[in-house]
C-alpha cells in the first residue's frame, strides 16, 4: 500500500479469563512470546510492512505495559511526521449506559478515521499470533465483491474449542457469518474449520457510515458486533491465511504455542519470513553459558546467565539459571531466577519469579505449573508468596 492509504485499529480489550494469572496486570496484547516478543508485535509488524503509519490502540484496564512497550511507536515506523500511534484510554467500567460515554465511544473511532484520510481501515486483534501479509489482504479485498473482507485459517476440528469464533462459509468461498465453532453450519472442507483471525478490512468511508448509524441507534453496539453484522449483511470476502497461527487465549494454548516455536519449521515460518517481526530493543548484554552449563533444544533471549541445564525450554532476557538447576519443557520470563539444585519441569514462570534452591517443581504437559509475576518460591510444595509489584 502507498503510505497513508491504510489505517489500523487494535482493541486490546480481549477476553482473557482463561489465561489468568498471566493477564492479571497486562492484556493479552502484551503477553511475552517466544523468548523475545509481545503479542502486539505481530500485528504491528504486519502493519509496518504494509506501510501503515496510523494506528489507533484502545487500551485495556491496565495500559502501563502497553504504553511502556510501544512508546513512540518508532520500532514499527509509527513515529513519522504524518500518522502515528493514537492511544485511547480505558473508560471506567465502560459504562455505556451513560449517554456521554456512549457518544465518546463512537467519537474516538470517528475522529481517528476521519483524520487518517486513509482509503481502507483494517481492524485487528492480538490474540492470534501470525505473520500476516496485510498487502495481500488489501489486494484480495480490492478483487472481491463485498465491501467487507475477513481473514481465516483452516484448522482441524480437533484444534477448536466450541466458543472459538469461526467463519460460516458459503459454497462460493465467502463468509456469511462469524459464529462460534459449535454453531458452524457452513461448508467445511476435509473436516477443517475456518478459524476466524480477528481481522476485518473495510473502506474507511463505509466504516464511518456504520459507526455513525450505530451511534444513532437506540441500543448500544460495540465495534466487533457492528462488524459481525456487516458480514451477515454482505457475505464478506474471506481471505485464507496458510502460515503459522496460534490463538493464545488459554494457559494451555499459550504453553503449547510457545513450545511449538522449538520446532524448526514453526520458528522459521513465524520469525524468519520476509516480513521480520520487530520489537522494542533492550540493549542486553550477551547471554553467558558457563563451562558447567548444558543447553539443548531451547530458545534464549540475551542477558541470560546459564550455569545449569536447560532443555526444550524458552528463556526470555535476563534469566539466571544457577548451578545444578534444571529447566525442562518450561517457559521462563524476563528476570526470573532458578536456584542452585532446583528442577523446574512443565512450568510457566512469569516475569521476576524466584525459585529458591533445591526444590523440585513439576507440572504436566496438559497442566503446566504457573508462577505469577514476582512470585518467590522457597517451599517444596511449590507454594510461595506473590510479592506486590
Amino acid at each position, binding site marked *: 500500500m502507498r503510505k497513508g492509504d491504510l489505517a489500523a485499529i487494535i482493541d486490546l480489550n480481549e477476553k482473557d479469563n482463561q489465561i489468568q494469572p498471566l493477564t492479571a496486570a497486562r492484556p493479552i496484547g502484551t503477553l511475552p512470546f517466544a*523468548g523475545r516478543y509481545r503479542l502486539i508485535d505481530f500485528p504491528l509488524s504486519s502493519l509496518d510492512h504494509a506501510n501503515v503509519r496510523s494506528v489507533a490502540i484502545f487500551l485495556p484496564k491496565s495500559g502501563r505495559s502497553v504504553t511502556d512497550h510501544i512508546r513512540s511507536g518508532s520500532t514499527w515506523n509509527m513515529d513519522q511526521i504524518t500518522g502515528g500511534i493514537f492511544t485511547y484510554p480505558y473508560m471506567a467500567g465502560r459504562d455505556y449506559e451513560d449517554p456521554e460515554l456512549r457518544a465518546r465511544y463512537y467519537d474516538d473511532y470517528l475522529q481517528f478515521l476521519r483524520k487518517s484520510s486513509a482509503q481502507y481501515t483494517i481492524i485487528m486483534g492480538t490474540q492470534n499470533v501470525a505473520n500476516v501479509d496485510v498487502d495481500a489482504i488489501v489486494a484480495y479485498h480490492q478483487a472481491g465483491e463485498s465491501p467487507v473482507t475477513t481473514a481465516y485459517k483452516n484448522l482441524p476440528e480437533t484444534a477448536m474449542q466450541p466458543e472459538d469464533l469461526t467463519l460460516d462459509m458459503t459454497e462460493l468461498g465467502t463468509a456469511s457469518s462469524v459464529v462460534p465453532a459449535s454453531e458452524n453450519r457452513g461448508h467445511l472442507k476435509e473436516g477443517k474449520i475456518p478459524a476466524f483471525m480477528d481481522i476485518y478490512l473495510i473502506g474507511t468511508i463505509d466504516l464511518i457510515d456504520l459507526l455513525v448509524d450505530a451511534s444513532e441507534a437506540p441500543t448500544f453496539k460495540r465495534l466487533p458486533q457492528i462488524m459481525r453484522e456487516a458480514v451477515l449483511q454482505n457475505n464478506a470476502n474471506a481471505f485464507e491465511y496458510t502460515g503459522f497461527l496460534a490463538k493464545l487465549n488459554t494457559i494451555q494454548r499459550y504453553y503449547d504455542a510457545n513450545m511449538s516455536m522449538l520446532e524448526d519449521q514453526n520458528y522459521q515460518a513465524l520469525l524468519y519470513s520476509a516480513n521480520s517481526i520487530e520489537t522494542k530493543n533492550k540493549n542486553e548484554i550477551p547471554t553467558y553459558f558457563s563451562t558447567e552449563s548444558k543447553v539443548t533444544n531451547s530458545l534464549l533471549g540475551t542477558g541470560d546467565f546459564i550455569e545449569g541445564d536447560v532443555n526444550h525450554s524458552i528463556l526470555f532476557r535476563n534469566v539466571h539459571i544457577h548451578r545444578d538447576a534444571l529447566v525442562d519443557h518450561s517457559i521462563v520470563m524476563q528476570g526470573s531466577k532458578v536456584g542452585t539444585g532446583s528442577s523446574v519441569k512443565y512450568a510457566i514462570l512469569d516475569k521476576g519469579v524466584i525459585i529458591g534452591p533445591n526444590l523440585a517443581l513439576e507440572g504436566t504437559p496438559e497442566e503446566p505449573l504457573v508462577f505469577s509475576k514476582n512470585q518467590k518460591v522457597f517451599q517444596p510444595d511449590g507454594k510461595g508468596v506473590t510479592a506486590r509489584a
Partner: protein
Amino acid sequence: MLGIILAGGQGTRLGKLTKTTAKPSVPFGGRYRIIDFTLSNLANSGVNTAGVITQYQPLELNRHIQNGASWGLNERGAGVTILQPYASSEGEKFFEGTAHAIYQNIAYIDSYNPQYLLILSGDHIYKMDYQAMLDYHKSKKASLTVAVMPVAKDEAKRFGIMNTDDTDRIIEFEEKPAKPKSNLASMGIYIFNWPTLKQYLTESYATDGAMEDFGHDVIPAYLTHNEASYAYAFRGYWKDVGTIQSLWEANMEFLNPNNPLNIGNRNWRIFSQNEALPPMFLTKTAKVSGSMIVDGCYVAGAIQHSILSQNVKIGEGSVIKDSMIMPNAVIGKNVTVDHAIVGENAIIGDNGKVIGKPNEISVVGYGEVLGRTEKE
C-alpha cells in the same frame, strides 16, 4: 564540554578486518562495535554533544551511529554529528592527522562555543567517567589534561609515556621511549581549554609550523610553552584493540564473567545500535560451554570459550573453540574453528578448517568464502 571522537584511522594493523570498514566499527564482544564503548561513556558521563570524525571507509560507521539515538545522544540542540572531509573554496579538507582533523573542524566546534574540548579515540575498550576527568582538569586549573594508564614497565616502550612531577604535572612526553622513565601511558584522551587550543592550531597553520598530530606536535608545543598540562591517572580496565592479537585477547577477556570491565553493570551500560532479531536457538545437538551468544544465532554445533555475534549460524558437528565470530557469519557442518576471528558475513563451507595458535590468531576476512556448503 564538547566531545570529539577521532574515528578516521584505517587501523592497518587489523589487516583483513579493516579492509572495508573503519576500526571503530569493528564488532566486539558479541553485540557491540568498538566505538560503542566511547559513545556510551559520553552518554553516561552526561556529555550530550559530540562530533565523530570519520574519513577511512565510513559507510558502516555512519550507518551504525546515525543520529546517536541508540546512545540517547539525539537531544534537541545537542547530539552526534558525523564530521567527514569536505571540499571548500580553499581546496579539499582531508585530514592529515589528529590535530589537523580538529583544525579542519573549527567551524563545527565553534558553533557550540565550548569552554572545554574532550578528545577521544574510537578504538579502545574501557568504561570511564569523563565528567570526573573534567572535575580534575578544573581543580588543577589545567590547560591540558591527558588521561594516563599505568602499564607494566616492560610494556611502557610501546606507548607514549608521560613523565610527571609530584603534583602530576607533565614535565616530559616521550613517544615509545627505549628506556622509559615512568610507566604512565597516554590513553589518547585529552581535555583542552578550547580557546587556547584553537589559538595554537590557527597560529601554527598561519605560519609554516602546521600541527598535524597531538602526540607529535601539540603536546610538545604545550610543554615548550609551559602550558599547565596534567596527567589524570585512570585505574580501570582499558584495552587498546589495534591489532589482531589484542582484539582477540580483549574478546577472550570479555568472556570472563569476572572481567573488571563489568559489562553487566546497569549503572554504566554499554549501548549499541542493533536490529531486533529472533532469540537465539540452540538445537538438540548444540553443546555450549564457557561462551557468549546473542540473538539471531542458530547453533547446532559445539561452542567452547568463544563469542558468537548476531545472526551467526553454526552447523551440526562443527567445533568453535577460543574464537570470536562476527555478525552474520555462516559456518557449515563439521567445521573446526580454533583460535580465530571470523569476519562479518564470512562463509565457511562444510568440513572447513580455520586453525590458529594462541600467539598467531587466524583471520577470515569480511565476506570471505571458504569452501562450499551443501544445500539442504
